């Protein structure tokens, strides 16, 4: 190891790795070669990436080979990218190295973020002021549409309903279950897994699961095979076409989301409950508090910040949901939601302007959550 490196030298690249040199001639030769390599390697790598891009995009070779190639590029290629950048930086003048190196580490991620989130988001705002094919500007026409079209207004009303009902119910049930299961001597893990399990299922598959539960057959089309109708008839009622039943069908769709989300809330809250110091709880019990008082005065205040986090996460998930509505009712029968309308207008009806305006409205609605998250993050960093 080199003795030129002192403790305060933060970025000592290359020194440790460079082999000892014999004489000046060798030194010059190797450093020239190194500089040539440092300049050419990035271009070679770029060429390789471009070639891989063309192959992956255009070739009809076997899917397995394509995946193997993608993995090779994704792992070896990405690693080579960083290695080459690092190598080239090692040959920069020393003062530059320290300044440039961090950008080699964050650079690719920043490029992805800019290309896939920041730039498109800005562009979507611009598109929202243009017509359906994004050729000419139409001012606020698309926004006027968003706030006057009947289906759009219904979708805004319904999304509000989702935001109010789903997070509250799933966090409520999740909290209750977390508290109850915490006291269990045996079977806690099994009980939690069962509630948590729907988290692994796609919204699409979950929708099929519940379409089956809500299934209805008109008279003369056979037995009712849906669980809900069978229970309903067992109570002495006539079968109901649940998904056509406005406005209650919205609630039935929300049930699916609650079913999917409760496990998430429960697991997070359960972890928080286990983090409440046992001696505080013990002390309040000795002071004569009953279990409900302990829950209300100790547990709830201790996990309040976690409850807020779980709530905001649930709100964001709910605002973006579209698959459930898409699969269950296709957005008909008064079940439209904002995210579903966006895909409908942009993808099904091919109207970029309206789709973009709906997306912007959705985004603006999420901004308060975003600000809240950033504030929370900054407060946490201050404690770190």
């Amino acid at each position, binding site marked *: 190891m080199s003795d030129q490196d002192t403790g305060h030298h933060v970025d000592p690249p290359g020194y440790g790795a460079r082999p000892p040199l014999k004489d000046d001639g060798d030194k010059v030769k190797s450093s020239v070669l190194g500089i040539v390599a440092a300049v050419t390697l990035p271009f070679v790598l770029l060429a390789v990436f471009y070639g891989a891009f063309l192959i992956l995009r255009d070739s009809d070779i076997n899917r397995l080979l394509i995946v193997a190639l993608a993995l090779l590029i994704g792992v070896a290629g*990405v690693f080579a990218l960083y290695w080459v950048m690092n190598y080239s930086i090692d040959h920069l003048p020393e003062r530059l190295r320290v300044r440039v190196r961090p950008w080699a580490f964050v650079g690719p991620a920043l490029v992805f973020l800019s290309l896939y989130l920041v730039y498109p988001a800005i562009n979507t705002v611009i598109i929202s002021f243009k017509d359906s094919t994004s050729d000419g500007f139409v001012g606020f026409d698309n926004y006027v549409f968003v706030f006057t079209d009947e289906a759009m207004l219904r979708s805004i009303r319904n999304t509000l309903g989702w935001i109010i009902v789903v997070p509250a119910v799933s966090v409520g049930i999740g909290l209750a279950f977390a508290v*109850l299961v915490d006291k269990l001597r045996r079977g806690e893990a099994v009980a939690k897994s069962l509630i948590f399990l729907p988290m692994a299922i796609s919204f699409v598959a979950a929708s099929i699961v519940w379409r089956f539960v809500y299934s209805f057959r008109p008279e003369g089309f056979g037995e009712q*095979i849906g669980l809900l109708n069978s229970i309903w008839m067992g109570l002495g009622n006539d079968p109901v076409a649940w998904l056509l039943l406005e406005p209650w069908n919205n609630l039935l769709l929300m049930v699916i989301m609650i079913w999917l989300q409760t496990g998430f809330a429960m697991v997070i809250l359960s972890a928080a409950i286990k983090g409440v110091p046992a001696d505080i709880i013990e002390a309040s*019990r000795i002071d004569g508090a009953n279990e409900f008082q302990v829950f209300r005065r100790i547990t709830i205040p201790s996990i309040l910040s976690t409850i807020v986090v779980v709530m905001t996460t649930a709100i964001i998930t709910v605002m973006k949901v579209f698959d459930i509505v898409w699969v269950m009712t296709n957005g008909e029968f008064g079940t439209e939601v904002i995210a579903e309308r966006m895909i409908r207008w942009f993808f099904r009806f091919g109207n970029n302007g309206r789709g973009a305006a709906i997306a912007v409205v959705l985004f603006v609605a999420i901004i308060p959550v975003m600000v809240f998250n950033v504030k929370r993050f900054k407060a946490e960093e201050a404690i770190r």
Partner: protein
Amino acid sequence: MTTVDTPTAVGKKMHHWYSNPWSKIVIVIMAIMWTIPTFGLIVSSFRTKEAVNTSGWWTAFALPMDWAQWTLENYETVLFSNGFGNAFLNSLAVTIPATVIPIAVAAFAAYAFAWMDFPGRNWLFVVVVGLLVVPLQMALIPLLRMYTSLSLNGTFLAVWLAHTGFGLPLAIYLLRNYIGTLPRSTIESAQIDGASHFDIFRRLVVPLSVPALASFAIFQFLWVWNDFLVALVFLGGTPDVRVLTLALVDLNGNRGEAWHLLTAGALITMILPLTVFFALQRYFVRGLTAGSVKG
């Protein structure tokens, strides 16, 4: 029995009072309510078309030994006639690279955010935190246009890159929070020994961060496998690239009342995520709590 209640005795008594049968009953009822929809789906997927269409799945248990009602034919039909077999392979082809690439890119960035000094580091990370909640819908239209001009639409590459972009904020956020908690002394002593950032990252940080890398990998795997929106917009429904979620939605649209097929199809889409979930639940939960609760 002692007459004086010691603190622990009080605790135990309370504990005993609390684990009364009622709370157990509530737990059991909830667990059943949460499980029964999936259970009905599984049972139905193994019943014959005839049986599924003429009676509720719960009636199967009246005569469970009546073998005539059970069959594997639904799976055979769905896998080979409805293209679910092919779609399963497509889902794998989409999911594996779309899980690996963002991890590699995010890990380097997370290391820089945690252990390197550069101007704008803090506000750039705040931007990442903000991007966590940007809805996908905000990005779809310009991306589709960009992909059209690059003729990338309908290729696996398009979806891998899109999932990389969309998955990065969470990946960077989770990994940076984890990598930032590694002991400062370890990193600094490696620096004093002359190790470059690249070496420290490769030899020290990656091996130490395996739990965080694993938990994000599971997240991203489940998210990509279960995704419908990105696949619908950028990959489309042509049979040679169609993924499982799209195959299931197609089946739902064309054969909306063919419950014997829909149930089997839905279960095929669920098998892999459920296996991953049960095998690696511990990492998954750890990732969830790390992402939402400050440890």
